[in-house]
């Protein structure tokens, strides 16, 4: 056991998977000698050499497109896209090829690919360095979309993603890269893709969240006198609706919290499925606390945009009193 940050936990997962399986290679911008702009791949270049930790030309579509070829040939590439705002150029390769390859070839070709992407706001970054596009990729059939909220989960989920036979987008909430530490086993373990985590148990209200927002939810819960159950989805697709159903059927009230814009955010899907599954258990409408349907503001106003404990607390009160 070691007390690790989320960055260190991801680094450890990469090291261990690379040691175990020489099909795993890392590629991307600045991932080599520099260890990545967030230092997630620190030390890997030295340890595994330039054939396995590859600094590529500065071209996101190129990084993902060549990774697709590497994966079709049977390797397990783990490309890094430096920020979620730069996924756009690779969108075509991700959605037109990686996501479709297995089904359009009826299994003749597959794309076991894990795309690591720092995601979300809250670090005073320039524009296009703070967005939350998880719903866009969850809406693309053929992909898996993961977003851990703790070092333990980050390590276990990344190992699962790398070993997964299908393409996974692994979003890393950059706001909590170094925000806190957690005991992370050095021994091998996995956290399954598609399973939520109950962060704390409660009886009166359920909060569903993922990524860095989970921390804000905890702050709101600590302030509140209501008995609240917090569910960290951990995986956006395929998502653990059973965990949500079980909790909301018990509490009858639900608040969904995410950084991404509210309209068509992934909270909308969860809210709909709660209605489909828990209609007769509901004591109040499902409430969403989310980013606004605006362009993510520059950092002077980002804390106005991002759901914080105050807004979550307000939702808890409103829904609790409904």
């Amino acid at each position, binding site marked *: 056991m070691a007390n690790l940050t989320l960055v260190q936990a991801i680094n450890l997962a990469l090291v261990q998977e690379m040691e175990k399986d020489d099909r795993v*290679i890392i590629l991307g911008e600045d991932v080599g000698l520099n260890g990545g702009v967030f230092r997630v791949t620190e030390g890997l270049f030295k340890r595994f050499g330039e*054939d396995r930790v*590859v600094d*590529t*030309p500065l*071209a996101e*579509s*190129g990084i*993902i*497109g*060549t*990774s*697709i*070829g*590497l*994966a*079709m*040939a*049977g*390797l397990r*590439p783990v490309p890094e896209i430096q920020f979620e705002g730069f996924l756009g*150029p690779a969108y*075509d*390769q991700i959605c*037109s*090829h990686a996501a479709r390859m*297995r*089904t*359009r*070839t*009826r*299994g*003749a*070709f*597959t794309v076991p690919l894990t795309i690591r992407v720092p995601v979300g706001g809250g670090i005073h970054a320039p524009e296009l360095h703070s967005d939350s596009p998880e719903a866009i990729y969850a809406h693309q*059939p*053929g992909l*898996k979309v993961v977003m851990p909220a703790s070092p333990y989960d980050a390590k276990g989920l990344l190992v699962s993603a790398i070993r*997964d*036979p*299908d393409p996974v987008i692994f979003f890393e909430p950059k706001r909590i890269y170094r925000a806190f530490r957690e005991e992370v086993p050095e021994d091998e373990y996995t956290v399954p893709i*598609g399973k939520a985590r109950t962060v704390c148990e409660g009886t009166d209200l359920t909060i569903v969240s993922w990524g860095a927002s989970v921390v804000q939810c905890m702050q709101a819960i600590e302030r509140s006198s209501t008995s609240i159950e917090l569910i960290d989805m951990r995986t956006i*697709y*395929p*998502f653990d*609706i059973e965990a949500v159903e079980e909790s909301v059927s018990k509490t009858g009230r639900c608040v969904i919290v995410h950084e991404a814009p509210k309209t068509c955010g992934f909270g909308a899907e969860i809210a709909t*499925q709660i209605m*489909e*599954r828990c209609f007769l258990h509901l004591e109040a409408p499902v409430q969403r606390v989310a980013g606004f349907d605006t362009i993510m503001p520059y950092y002077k106003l980002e804390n106005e945009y991002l759901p914080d404990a105050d807004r979550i607390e307000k939702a808890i009160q409103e829904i609790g009193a409904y």
Partner: protein
Amino acid sequence: MPITKVLEAQIDHVSILDEHGNFDEALGKGLIPDEDLIKLYGHMVICRLLDEVAFKLQRSGRMGTYPQNMGQEAPSLGAAYALESTDWMVTCYRENCGLFWRGLPMEKILQHWMGDERGNDIPRELHATPIAVPIGTQMLHATGLAWAAKYRKEDRVACTFFGDGATSEGDFHEAMNFAANLDIPVVFFCQNNQWAISVPGKIQCSAPTVAQRGMAYGMDCLRCDGNDLFAVVHCMKKAIASGRENNRPTFIEAVTYRLGDHTTADDARRYRDAEEVELWKARDPITRIKEYMKSRKIWDDSKQAELDEHADQAVSAAVKRAEGIESPTTNDIFNWMYAELPESLAVQRDTMRTSSLGQDPSQIETPQTSQQN
């Protein structure tokens, strides 16, 4: 000397057997043995016939939209002939002739255009990827495939095919840049057929050659008469050797012409002159081989009659096989989405005929979990 020349560029255009029957002995002698040439010629004749039959299948409602390959048989065939069967072929949709030479059953291509994904279920040992539909994206996959081969120290190159229109796409440039800078053995094979649907080549590239695009990335560039099978083989051999020996990519521009419409949904008469088409019909890649073989006395009319009959049989049999394939099952919509089907998708699959989408089976009056077509 404040100004010095830092680059002097040259692009070679290769022609070995031209449309008038002129044959360059120095370059062409021994390049393709006669017995191979006869086979290659026969193969082109069969492919041309399949193309004509496919067009008719579409017109008679037996097949969906189909992009004719007519007139472009030589480029992919010459490439496939020069490649080893362990080298990757990463194609778009005008490489039927090369894919069939590699061993892809003709009915697979028909099946693809008949709207059945199983047409893309290409046996792994063929080292051919399925037709790439979005333009200019597959060169990156070729680069990744060749990169994997290099990583594993396999003696394998990748050859990727695309048209002149694709050289306007960003992914094309990214692929060339990756391959050149990371020393990846890829042959970038441009079938410059001069038209991207209705848009002429000059709107894709205002430089005198498309080939020089490769030069900007520091790779060897060759240009050839794409309707000259010998010239294509000559260029491919050079490119393949450079890949195998030095992990270097090469760019080949094969100048050819799309004799047919872009697809069966297109009518090229709307945007190009009949005279231009006639000019290129006279440069047909198949006719010139036939005339060459006749002049060499290795081909005659009776052999042609025999071949035509064989082609008829081969194509009819392929169509029969394609049309005889049973329809895919409804379950196939779901079953290939992931290695392991997520529960939510299994529910959609199992209730698609019994519920509106998204309903949980437990909420449906008479839950049914069996599938049906």
